[in-house]
């Protein structure tokens, strides 16, 4: 409790009159420099509140006379970034796919841009890094349904697969079982034959019967030896890579019900430069031909 104030002998200052257990408190003023900085911060805060958005209301806030918004600042900085990229974007736009691959600087830019576009647009189906999933081709391996050259990849991305785009990749794996084109036993035999094409085990007599069925029904697209045909997106049946699965049950399912995987035509959704960068990126994922 404040008692009487007194003058301290050493410093010549008044005490505050507070005393606890015999310890009295000196009434030392705040240092001047501290006080002035404190006043300066108050002045700064007032100025800030006038210039910038500051005080929140229930559904809005003060705008500040400078009209600053974070959103606009972001737009500006992205525009600035886009302007810095413009030089490269223009070069990618003007260069052919082959030229991009030959120019280390452009290649590096296109691969980086392609990766960003891929992760945004393609990764939901093809997975990050083009790892693929059942029904969605792995883009990092050396097996291509529609061709793995830069031009073929570019074409596939631009127009897509089995969609309404007039230039899209078109083909159809018939529903041999569901539409009654083949009998159940024939399907079973041809599945056994297809197993042997990729070196898997199957009963020899069934496979022999299946070979006949294959030659009559499947070889048109998949080739006499089952090596596939990229013109029509017919899968190579002799390798170790399967889009839907290479076991007997899946094969029978595929032959019975057909397959008709589809991919959008990205030409309608992305600009030509992005598609070029995507093609270069996918080509460099490991399987480019």
């Amino acid at each position, binding site marked *: 409790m404040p008692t009487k104030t007194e003058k301290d*002998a050493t410093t010549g200052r008044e005490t505050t009159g507070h005393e606890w257990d015999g310890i009295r408190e000196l009434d030392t003023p*705040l240092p001047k420099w501290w006080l002035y900085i404190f006043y300066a911060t108050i002045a700064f805060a007032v100025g800030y509140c006038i210039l910038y958005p500051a005080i929140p209301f229930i559904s809005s806030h003060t705008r500040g006379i400078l009209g600053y918004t974070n959103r606009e600042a972001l737009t500006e900085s992205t525009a600035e970034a886009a302007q810095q990229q413009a030089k490269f974007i223009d070069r990618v736009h003007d260069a052919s796919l082959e030229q991009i691959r030959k120019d280390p600087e452009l290649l590096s830019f296109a691969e980086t841009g392609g990766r960003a576009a891929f992760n945004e647009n393609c990764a939901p189906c093809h997975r*990050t890094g083009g*790892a693929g999933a059942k029904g969605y081709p792995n883009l*990092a*391996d050396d097996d291509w349904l529609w061709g793995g050259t830069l031009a073929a990849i570019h074409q596939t991305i631009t127009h897509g697969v089995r969609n309404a785009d007039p230039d899209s990749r078109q083909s159809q794996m018939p529903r041999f079982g569901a539409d009654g084109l083949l009998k159940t036993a024939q399907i079973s035999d041809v599945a056994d034959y297809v197993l042997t094409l990729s070196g898997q085990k199957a009963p020899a007599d069934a496979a022999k019967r299946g070979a006949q069925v294959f030659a009559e029904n499947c070889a048109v697209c998949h080739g006499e030896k089952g090596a596939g045909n990229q013109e029509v997106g017919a899968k190579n049946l002799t390798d170790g*890579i399967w889009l839907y699965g290479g076991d007997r049950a899946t094969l029978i399912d595929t032959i019975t019900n057909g397959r008709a995987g589809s991919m959008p035509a990205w030409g309608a959704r992305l600009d030509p430069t992005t598609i070029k960068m995507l093609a270069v990126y996918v080509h460099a994922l490991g399987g480019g031909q």
Partner: protein
Amino acid sequence: MATALAPHPTEEDKDGIPLFAPHEKVYPRAVRGTMRRIKWAVLILCLSLYYIGPWLRWNRGPAYPSQAFLIDMPTRRAYFLGIEIWSHELYYLAGLLIVGAIGLFLVTSLFGRVWCGFTCPQTVWTDLFLWAERLIEGDRTQRIRLDQQPLSLKKIGKKAAKHAAWLVIAAATGGAWVMYFNDAPTLVHDLFTLNASTVQYGFVGLFTATTYLLAGWAREQVCTYMCPWPRFQSAMIDEETYAVTYRDWRGETRGKHRKGDSWEGRGDCIDCRACVAVCPTGIDIRDGLQLECIGCGLCIDACNDIMDKVERPRGLIAFDTYANRTACLKGATPTHHFLRPRTIAYAAILLATLGLMAVALAHRSTLELSVLRERNPLFVRLSDGEIRNGYTVKIENKRGETQVYALRADGLANALLHVAENDQAPIAAETGTTVAVRGDAIGTFRVYLQAPRSETREQPVTLSVRNTESGETASYATTFRGPEH
């Protein structure tokens, strides 16, 4: 802001010594003499080095900046004459700091705080600011009188001129500092044409402010209260260390002396307080070696001057050792050893560190390799059943010109390798291929390894590069992943 007051007088109160000492402004008097001349010479040398440094040129070839001393932040490079270091090689800087510290220990154990008194930037700039102050406001007595005068136009004029002069020096100091981080001629042009960046102006402003405050206002308080060095310098100093010493065995008993008085039965000190008046930290050296003493030796000059006047031998205050003093008090002959366990140890550590740094610099690699294994996908199954892994390989070429590197992979049986950027068919991994990296740059390559499926899920593999010209090599151990079974 509470200060405890004891209800009853304590020991301190009885003696009238308060626990708190308010700051007393120091007005060092001008002085002439050997120490002062050495100080001016060191000051001119240090300031010249500092201000001329950024303007020195060094030809490194067209791909490099031509500034002799440059820390280039945007490209993360530092250039010191013929040495170039990259940001992750900052341990060279750590080595330099260790050399600096040990060097300081050695010099301190030999000669006391000569660093503080002569070369420390705080001392050098304070000296420069004091010089400007003296030019404008006059010497000690005039300054004291000026400060005691009531505010007048003349006083305001002098004070304004002094602070303006200080700010100009401070701005030049701050301006020179940022030049070590930019191309000096370009930056000077930008600064004066208002084309420099906010960051550049900000740093000039920051260093101007700190120089102005530390050398103009804080002065000896930096040494006494802020700097850690005086606190532990006593650990380096021993009886045989030279330090600014008042030879009390000669000076005491001190007392006023009138011309013609006998010197019999008294000391040489005439208690004129010249040593106190010139001291930049405002202490009395006659109290003995103390924390506040920066060892500048200006009191030596002041005292010698007085000794000449009273016709007594010089050196009442001098660089001397405590051992000498003890010997002289006993009347013995002083001896001195520069070689002591302490100095030998410091010198040995210093030489070892310098040697290590020289070896490290001489063997500085101009090639570094880092490998990031692709994890998305972990591995790829190829149509012929083989497994392929992808790696992002970064090759740092620290040479100025494009270099060609032979890249290979070892430790993986029957493996094939190809580089996506190379348009080459896969080739035996142990034969490898070549890649080119531009000068002073990092080359990034996607490297693919393929190998027959193995029983083990993970196999070790080592990627290595060799500079085809110089033969320099670097390698990186990583793994090759396959399916679970």
